C-alpha cells in the first residue's frame, strides 16, 4: 500500500506534463481533440489527488499523519529531492485540479479558441501547481514556481489585445523580480542552515548558532516577501487587480488558485520552520504577517467598494481572501488555521465560480454599463426615478437570468461569509477558535508566562473578519441590484449548457461541503494539527530510506527491508 502510494505521488506532475507534450505535438489545430485530452487528463489528476487525499487521511485519530514520500532519483531525504504527500498537500492538489477542471470545461464553449495552445498551457500550469504543492525542497519549489509562472504568463496573454498585454507585462515584470527575491532568500537559507530540504531545515533551525540565525532569518524574510508577492499581500498586490480582471474568464477562474500557492507555502513553511519548537526564532515575523494580512483586507475592501466593473470586484475578492488567510495563519493556533483552511477552499471555489459567472452576466449587457453603476450612485443623488407605473404586472424574469441571479447570490453569500453556505461555516470556525484561550498564539506568546487573555490582536482579527464580510455584502448587493433588478433594456445573454456546468458544479460543491461540514471540519482540524506539530512530517521525510537499485521491489513487499545499510553519497 505504502509503496503504491509513494509511486503515485509523482503522477500529478507527470500526467499533465505528458499530456501537454502530446498537445504541443498535435500542433495549433485539432482543438477539440486537445480539449478532450485536457479534460480527461485533469479528471485523472483529480482522481489521483482524491486517492492521495484519502490515503493521507487514513491514519487513525491521534496517530501522526500518514505521509507518503517519493524520493526523486532515489537519494535519501536531506540530499535528494523529495515529493511529500500529507493532508495539506493532497488537499491543495484536489483543490487545484477541481478549479482547473472547471476553467477548462468552461473554456471549451468559446474561450479556448481565442489564442494558441490554451489547453497545453493549462496542463503545464496544473503540473507546476501540483509540483509546488508536493515538493519538500526549497529549490525544487522555485523550479515548480517558475513552471507555473511561465504557463501563467502565456495564459494571462491569452486572447491578446492591448490592455491585456499591458497588464501581462506588469505581471511578468513583478513576478520576475519576485523570482530574484526567491533565489536570494533560498540561497541565504542554504548558506546559513546548509540545507534546502524543508524538513531538514525545520530540524536544524532550533540548533543554529546565533550569527547564522540572523542570516537565516534574513533569508527567510526575503523568501517570505517573494511568496507574499504571489499571495498578493497589500503593498505587493498592485499588479493583481488588473492582471486578474483583464485575463479571459476561464483563465481568471483558474488563477484564483494561484494566490493560494503563496498562501500554501507560508502555511507549509512558517509553522514548520518558525513554529513553537524553533527556539529563538519561534514565531519569527508573525506580527508582519498579521498586520500585513489585516492591511490587505482593508485594501481589498476599499478597492471592492470602489470597483466599477464586475471582474475587478472579483479580483478584489481574491485580495480580501488572501489577506484573511494571511492574518488567520499569523494567529498561529491550530484552531484558527483549521477555519482558515476551510475558508481557503470555500473562497477559492467561490471566486472561481464568480469569475465564470461574471462572463455570462456581462454577455447580455451594454458595454460600459458597469462603469455607470458607481457613477450613477455618486452623481444622481436626486435619483433617476423613472415613472414605473407603466407596467403594473411586472416583468417576467427569463430562466437564464434567474439561474444567473441565484448563482450570483450564492457567490455573494460565499464570499461575504453569510449563512447558509461554506463561507459562513469557515468564518464561524475561525471566530470560534479566536474566542478560545489559546486562540491567537501570537498574542499569547508575547505576554509570555501570564495567562493568555483575549488580546487586542484577537479583537482586531475578529473585527476584520466581520467588517470585511459586511463590506463584501454591500458591494455585491449593489452590483447585484444594478445587474439583475434593472428593467431589461439589455438582451438576455445566450448561455450554452456547457458553460453552466462548471459554475453550477462549483457552487454545488460548496453546498455539499456545507452539508458535510462536520467531516470536512474534522479533516481540516487534523490538517491544522499536523501543520502545527510538524514532527510527523519532519521524521517522515528524513527517515525514508532509499531503495536498493539492484533489488526491484514489487508491490506489497515491504520497501523498508533492504535499506538498512545505506551507501553514503
Amino acid at each position, binding site marked *: 500500500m505504502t509503496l503504491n502510494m509513494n509511486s503515485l505521488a509523482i503522477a500529478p506532475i507527470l500526467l499533465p506534463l505528458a499530456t501537454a507534450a502530446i498537445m504541443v505535438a498535435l500542433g495549433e489545430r485539432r482543438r477539440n481533440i486537445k480539449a478532450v485530452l485536457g479534460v480527461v487528463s485533469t479528471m485523472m489528476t483529480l482522481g489521483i489527488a482524491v486517492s492521495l487525499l484519502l490515503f493521507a487521511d487514513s491514519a487513525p485519530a491521534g496517530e501522526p499523519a500518514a505521509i507518503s514520500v517519493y524520493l526523486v532519483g532515489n537519494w535519501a531525504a536531506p540530499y535528494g529531492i523529495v515529493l511529500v504527500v500529507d493532508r495539506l498537500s493532497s488537499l491543495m492538489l484536489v483543490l487545484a485540479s477541481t478549479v482547473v477542471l472547471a476553467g477548462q470545461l468552461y473554456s471549451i464553449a468559446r474561450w479556448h479558441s481565442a489564442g494558441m495552445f490554451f489547453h497545453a498551457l493549462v496542463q503545464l500550469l496544473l503540473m507546476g501547481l501540483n509540483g509546488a504543492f508536493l515538493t519538500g525542497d526549497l*529549490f525544487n519549489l*522555485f*523550479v515548480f514556481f*517558475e513552471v507555473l*509562472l*511561465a504557463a501563467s*504568463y502565456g495564459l494571462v*496573454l491569452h486572447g*491578446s*489585445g*492591448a490592455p491585456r*498585454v*499591458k497588464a*501581462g*507585462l*506588469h505581471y*511578468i*515584470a513583478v513576478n*520576475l*523580480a519576485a*523570482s*530574484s527575491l526567491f*533565489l*536570494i532568500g*533560498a*540561497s*541565504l537559507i*542554504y*548558506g546559513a542552515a546548509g540545507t*534546502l530540504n524543508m524538513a531538514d531545515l525545520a530540524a536544524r533551525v532550533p540548533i543554529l548558532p546565533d550569527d547564522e540565525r540572523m542570516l537565516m532569518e534574513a533569508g527567510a524574510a526575503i523568501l517570505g516577501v517573494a511568496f507574499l508577492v504571489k499571495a498578493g499581500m497589500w503593498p505587493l498586490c498592485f499588479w493583481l487587480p488588473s492582471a486578474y480582471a483583464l485575463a479571459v474568464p476561464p483563465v481568471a477562474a483558474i488563477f484564483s488558485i494561484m494566490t493560494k500557492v503563496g498562501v500554501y507555502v507560508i502555511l507549509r513553511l512558517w509553522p514548520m520552520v518558525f513554529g513553537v519548537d524553533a527556539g529563538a526564532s519561534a514565531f519569527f515575523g508573525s506580527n508582519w504577517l498579521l498586520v500585513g494580512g489585516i492591511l490587505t483586507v482593508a485594501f481589498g475592501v476599499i478597492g471592492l467598494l470602489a470597483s466599477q466593473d464586475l471582474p475587478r470586484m472579483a479580483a478584489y475578492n481574491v485580495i480580501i481572501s488572501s489577506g484573511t488567510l494571511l492574518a488567520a495563519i499569523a494567529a498561529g493556533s491550530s484552531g484558527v488555521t483549521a477555519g482558515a483552511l476551510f475558508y481557503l477552499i470555500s473562497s477559492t471555489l467561490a471566486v472561481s465560480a464568480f469569475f465564470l459567472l461574471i462572463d455570462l452576466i456581462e454577455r447580455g449587457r451594454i458595454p460600459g454599463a458597469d462603469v455607470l453603476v458607481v457613477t450613477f450612485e455618486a452623481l444622481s443623488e436626486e435619483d433617476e426615478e423613472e415613472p414605473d407605473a407603466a407596467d403594473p404586472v411586472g416583468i417576467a424574469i427569463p430562466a437564464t437570468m434567474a439561474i444567473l441571479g441565484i448563482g450570483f447570490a450564492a457567490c455573494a453569500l460565499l464570499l461575504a461569509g453569510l449563512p447558509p453556505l461554506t463561507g459562513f461555516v469557515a468564518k464561524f470556525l475561525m471566530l470560534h477558535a479566536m474566542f478560545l484561550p489559546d486562540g491567537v498564539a501570537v498574542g499569547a506568546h508575547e505576554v509570555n508566562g501570564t495567562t493568555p487573555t483575549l488580546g487586542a490582536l484577537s479583537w482586531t482579527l475578529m473585527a476584520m473578519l466581520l467588517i470585511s464580510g459586511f463590506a463584501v455584502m454591500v458591494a455585491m448587493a449593489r452590483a447585484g441590484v444594478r445587474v439583475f433588478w434593472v428593467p431589461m433594456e439589455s438582451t438576455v445573454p445566450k448561455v450554452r449548457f456547457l458553460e453552466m456546468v462548471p459554475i453550477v458544479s462549483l457552487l454545488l460543491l460548496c453546498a455539499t461541503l456545507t452539508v458535510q461540514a462536520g467531516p470536512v471540519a474534522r479533516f481540516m482540524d487534523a490538517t491544522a494539527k499536523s501543520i502545527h506539530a510538524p514532527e510527523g512530517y519532519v521524521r517522515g521525510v528524513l527517515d525514508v530510506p532509499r531503495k536498493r537499485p539492484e533489488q526491484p521491489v514489487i508491490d506489497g513487499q515491504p520497501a523498508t527491508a533492504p535499506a538498512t545499510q545505506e551507501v553514503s553519497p
Partner: protein
Amino acid sequence: MEIILALSIGALAGSGIWLILRSRTYQVLIGLSLLSYAVNLFIFSMGRLRTDAPPILEKGVPNTLAHYTDPVPQALVLTAIVITFAMTALFLVVLLVARGLTRNDHVDGRES
C-alpha cells in the same frame, strides 16, 4: 576577493533595481537581466568562496569539505541561469508585442 565580489554584486543589483524602476520597457528588461546576474553571483558566493578546490570527488583526496568546494550552489546557479534566461527571452517577446500594439515603449503603454 570577497570585497571585489561583494562590490560587483552590489553594483549589478543596484543598477538592476534602478533600471527596473525606469519607465521604458527595454530598461526594465535590462534591469531584470542585471538583477539576475547579481543573484547568480550571490547564489554562487553562498557556497563560500574557495580557490583551487574542485566540486567533484577525486581519488586519493579525503572526503571532507576542507578539500572541496560546495557543489550545491553551483548546481543551483546552473538551474537559475537557465530559468532566468528563458524568462528574459519570454519577457522580451511580450515587450515587443506591447511595443507593436501600443506603438509606444512606455511600461504603461502611453506617455504620462
